[in-house]
């Protein structure tokens, strides 16, 4: 067993366990903290896959900004707990059954691919995934989407302010 495979298995177990922890914890704050752990392990996967820039962006944007925003809102509303009783009683078993069916389908497809998709053996270019190369690709091939993204962020900012501002009666 290679060190890389060992690292993958350990990290995958941590990722799945933290995702399940997020799913079942009753307190929303625990859910958020489990999700932070999950995002951190996914950032390590990005490092394993030679994407250092994306990994750092994941840490700073997801675990840094987005999850802090989540924790802020949870504590601001004081709404950590919501009951687990469903309004529709058969919702939980149906959801689990559908999830198992989806898992079986995905497993069937993945196992069917075995041996068809070749293993990569060609060496990577030296600067694959470096910030310089991300920047070059972003500002040559994806310049228009990049600019549209800035408009999207502006709209989101204005929208968040408009939604939460208190109306004067």
């Amino acid at each position: 067993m290679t060190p890389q495979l060992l690292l993958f298995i350990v990290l995958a177990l941590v990722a799945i366990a933290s995702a399940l922890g997020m799913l079942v914890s009753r307190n929303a704050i625990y859910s958020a903290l489990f999700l932070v752990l999950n995002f951190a392990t996914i950032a390590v996967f990005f490092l394993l896959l030679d994407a250092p820039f994306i990994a750092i962006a994941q840490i700073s944007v997801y675990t840094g900004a987005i999850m802090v925003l989540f924790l802020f809102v949870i504590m601001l509303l004081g709404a950590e707990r919501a009951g687990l009783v469903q309004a529709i009683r058969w919702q939980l078993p149906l959801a689990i059954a559908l999830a198992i069916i989806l898992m079986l389908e995905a497993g069937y497809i993945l196992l069917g691919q075995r041996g068809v998709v070749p293993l990569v053996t060609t060496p990577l270019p030296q600067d694959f995934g470096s910030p310089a190369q991300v920047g070059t690709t972003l500002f040559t091939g994806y310049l228009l989407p990049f600019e549209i993204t800035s408009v999207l962020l502006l709209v989101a900012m204005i929208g968040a302010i408009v939604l939460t501002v208190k109306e004067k009666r």
Partner: protein
Amino acid sequence: MLPVQYYLALAVILFIIGALGVLIRRNAIVVFMSVELMLNAANLAFVAYARFWQSMHGQIFVFFIITVAAAEVAIGLALIVTIFRTKASIDVDQISTLKG
């Protein structure tokens, strides 16, 4: 690099856990966090294939997905705060004023 199927299998499992969270949780904030988990599973698949094909385009897509997720979280949390102000609850089953 490990076979790309390993990463895909992990992404599938995380995605399904996220989908389950959307279906069975009633706290709107936890539902929202499950959506983030699904987005992250998609990111993992993108980066795995970017490494597999040795192409930067997958990583650029992940960059855009992270940006859109940030915008989505800002709007979504603002909506949740507004709903909480009017209904004093963020239980998704109670947001049924439009129900006939």
